[in-house]
């Protein structure tokens, strides 16, 4: 069998840390080969070696049977290897064509020749069914379309082998379906693909074979058709993984959080939360299900004091916390795992240890009289790192250097460790692998079992269904219904989220709001 790429016994070290240890990956021509591993397992490192960004300390790389030395990305390009990065490398206010030719601009009489380039972009786009408008501005097109531009860029430059780094992380379900079609089309046109991911479903859907790595070590390669998600998951994390979150019966007691007639506006003055009512009791997890942009962000920001409340009240244990500053809200007993961990959750240039004390640095025992005892910060950091299995070289490593999963674990550790009466978890598992997701879910449930209230916001129905004790469906700034997961289905939730009313299923918590819209049947 002909291999287009062989990475044999690759070893990559960073100082004393071994990121890749004896990993072998062989890509056949015309296959989709998945590279599976937890966050921080060394997938990106391996691909950066292939792409010439890192030099391996051991092993060899063969392209079409010939041993090669890829010392920089230009050589990778010349060998026909193209990378579709997870974080797009596009200039927002340039057109599609301008972005594609950037760095390699065709010229005619010394002037950039965009016209011919645009035509060529159009041709390539049509050949692979990408449907990209060469003249559109990047800032005007959707995330899914931007990703196609990235794909187009590699194809335009003659890539035969495409590396997709976590391509579905920021896509909507519909866009994911389309991406999978595009990948299949690419294969049909004779390309070969390496797909980096930790999503088992995608692997089962599209890949031909899977290479699994765990903690920097190559575990092996299996044929997708001969395996199943459960086996893959245990190969990846090295133990049995429970897909269905295990949890006992909830024992809710008195109200912890109660929100009454809350109205919140966004920065343009448009009402995003409209007379919303919600209660979360001690000892239960309430999940908020909804499509992105229906007021979830504004709701959380209003509770946590990051956004002004226009009217209505928010109270925690009968104490009015409406309009309090974020610090007062924190001190009142609310923990918050923010939606965007890079924007709000972490100061990326700070050491991870500083980040763990980001809300407590000013208080005893860390500070006395305005002077910080940095030893105490380190002690706390070491404790969280240990208790929450944050994989880092130590408390002084910059937060930026941690993988997404470990950054998230540090944030969750920080929030849970303060033992808040109400924990708000906004998209807590976004972009994480099954092992980390399982860990985070069990921590949320643990909080609940300790008699704390948990408010979970998620766009993933699986997550809401599995973890919540009650589900409040949000649509257009209102809670349109409150249901119990055991008594509902994803289809029903989907309809509610889309704003269609469904007869509530004999449960005492249903909200009286029903919208008299037509029922769509799919």
């Amino acid at each position, binding site marked *: 069998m002909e291999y287009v790429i062989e990475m044999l016994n690759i070893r990559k070290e960073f100082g004393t840390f071994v990121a890749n240890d004896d990993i072998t990956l062989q890509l056949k021509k015309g296959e989709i080969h998945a590279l599976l591993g937890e966050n921080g397992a060394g997938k990106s490192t391996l691909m950066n070696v292939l792409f010439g960004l890192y030099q391996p300390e051991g092993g060899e790389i063969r392209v079409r049977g010939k041993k090669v030395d890829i010392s920089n990305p230009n050589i990778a390009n010349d060998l026909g290897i193209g990378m579709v990065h997870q974080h797009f490398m596009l200039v927002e206010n340039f057109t599609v064509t301008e972005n594609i030719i950037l760095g390699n601009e065709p010229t005619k009489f010394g002037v950039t020749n965009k016209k011919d380039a645009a035509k060529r972009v159009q041709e390539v786009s049509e050949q692979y069914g990408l449907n990209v408008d060469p003249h559109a501005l990047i800032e005007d097109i959707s995330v899914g379309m931007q990703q196609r531009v990235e794909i187009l860029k590699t194809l335009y430059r003659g890539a035969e082998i495409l590396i997709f780094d976590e391509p579905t992380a920021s896509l909507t379900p519909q866009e994911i379906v389309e991406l999978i079609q595009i990948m299949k089309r690419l294969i049909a046109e004779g390309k070969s693909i390496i797909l980096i991911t930790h999503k088992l479903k995608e692997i089962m859907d599209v890949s031909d074979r899977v290479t699994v790595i765990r903690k920097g070590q190559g575990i092996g390669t299996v044929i997708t058709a001969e395996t199943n998600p459960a086996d893959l998951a245990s190969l990846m994390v090295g133990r049995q993984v429970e897909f269905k979150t295990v949890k006992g019966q909830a024992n809710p007691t008195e109200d912890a959080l109660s929100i009454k007639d809350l109205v919140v506006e966004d920065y343009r003055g448009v009402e995003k939360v409209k007379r919303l009512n919600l209660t979360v009791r001690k000892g239960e997890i309430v999940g908020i299900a909804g499509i992105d942009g229906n007021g979830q962000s504004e709701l959380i920001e209003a509770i*946590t004091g*990051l956004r002004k409340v226009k009217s209505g009240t928010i109270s925690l244990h009968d104490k009015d916390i409406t309009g309090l*500053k*974020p*610090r*007062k*809200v*924190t*001190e009142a007993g609310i923990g*918050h795992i*923010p939606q965007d961990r890079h*924007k*709000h*959750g*972490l*100061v*990326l*240039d*700070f050491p991870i240890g*500083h980040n763990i004390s*980001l*809300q407590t*640095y*000013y208080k005893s025992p860390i*500070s006395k009289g*305005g*002077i*910080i005892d940095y030893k105490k910060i380190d002690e706390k950091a070491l404790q969280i790192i240990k208790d929450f299995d944050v994989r880092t070289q130590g408390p002084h490593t910059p937060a930026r250097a941690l993988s997404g999963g470990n950054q998230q674990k540090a944030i969750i550790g920080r929030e849970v460790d303060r033992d808040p009466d109400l924990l708000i978890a906004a998209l807590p598992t976004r972009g994480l692998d099954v092992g980390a997701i399982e860990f985070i879910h069990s921590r949320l449930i643990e909080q609940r079992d300790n008699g704390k209230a948990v408010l979970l916001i998620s766009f993933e129905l699986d997550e809401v269904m599995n973890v919540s004790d009650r589900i409040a469906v949000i649509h257009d700034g209102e809670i349109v219904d409150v249901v119990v997961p055991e008594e509902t289905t994803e289809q029903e939730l989907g309809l509610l989220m889309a704003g269609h009313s469904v007869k509530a299923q004999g449960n005492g918590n249903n909200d009286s709001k029903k919208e008299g819209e037509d029922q769509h049947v799919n």
Partner: protein
Amino acid sequence: MSIRATNLLVPVISVILGLLVGAIVMLVSGYDPIVGYTALWNGIFGDLYTIGETIRQITPYILAGLAVAFAFRSGLFNIGVEGQLIVGWFAAAYVGVAVELPKIIHLPLAILAAAAAGALWGFVPGLLKAKFHVHEVIVTIMMNYIALHTTNALIKTVSDGGDRTESIFLSASLRSEFFQNLTDFSRLHYGILIALAMVAVMWFILEKTTLGFELKAVGFNHNASEYAGMNVNKNVILAMVISGAFAGLAGSMEALGTFEYVSSKGGFTGIGFDGIAVALLGMNTPLGVIFGATLFGSLKYGALNMPNAAGIPLEIVEIVIAVIIFFVASGYIIRLFLLRAAKKKEAK
């Protein structure tokens, strides 16, 4: 090559390269670089007097550098150090002239007046940034002009139409008999001790206090700081006030140490602007600022000797000095070059 060796080698190579290119500039213009550099060396370290004067020159550079670096660490670009320095200079000189008090009260009062004036000049852009999101670069540039012309007008008023004030009372002076005796009666004054103390103060604020923790957090990511319950607006204002106070102190060095008066100015002193380069050379760390200020201060002062002793016109001298500083600032390029060389060696 170890990291430590690289760190040591980079500045050395930078300075040598700068000197080489500077020599070429002198050669091309028809002057003897050896004579030129001898004059520069003698202008910096020639005798005790020049050494004293060099340190005197370094003093305000340290404080101006601290001012810029402190703002940078809080995520703010304070271009207004120049103006804050000018109002500090005036305030210190005014207090020094207007009253006569026992030294133990008069001198601290004059110094505090300078710091307060600089702080006020930093407060305005800080407030505008915090409350109305006006960019601090624009406001501070404008505040520089306001400072220059306001102090000129005030000097005229204070001195009954003259263009300089009286000399300050001795009770407000930083003059140091001890340093003078040590350095052959240079104008070296006690200000250098204040400057070094402020280096320690900045280090302490940034590395030990909750305020420093907040300022750095806000500087890196104001969204996360707000989420964590820090008062972002308060920190922005405070950062500008402290930065301005450092700049005001730089002014007091001139008012109470070097000149002992304030005169109306046709243009900016340049110290505040050079403070930006000093801070960047020192990578915005307190200790680094000492290094940057020493480089700047000694080259600037030593260069004054080149026209006299070597007959090189001031214009050429300024080009040579600029070239040397340029090479030091581009240490990054040299670092890259060293890394490449090391890699090639490894590959073989």
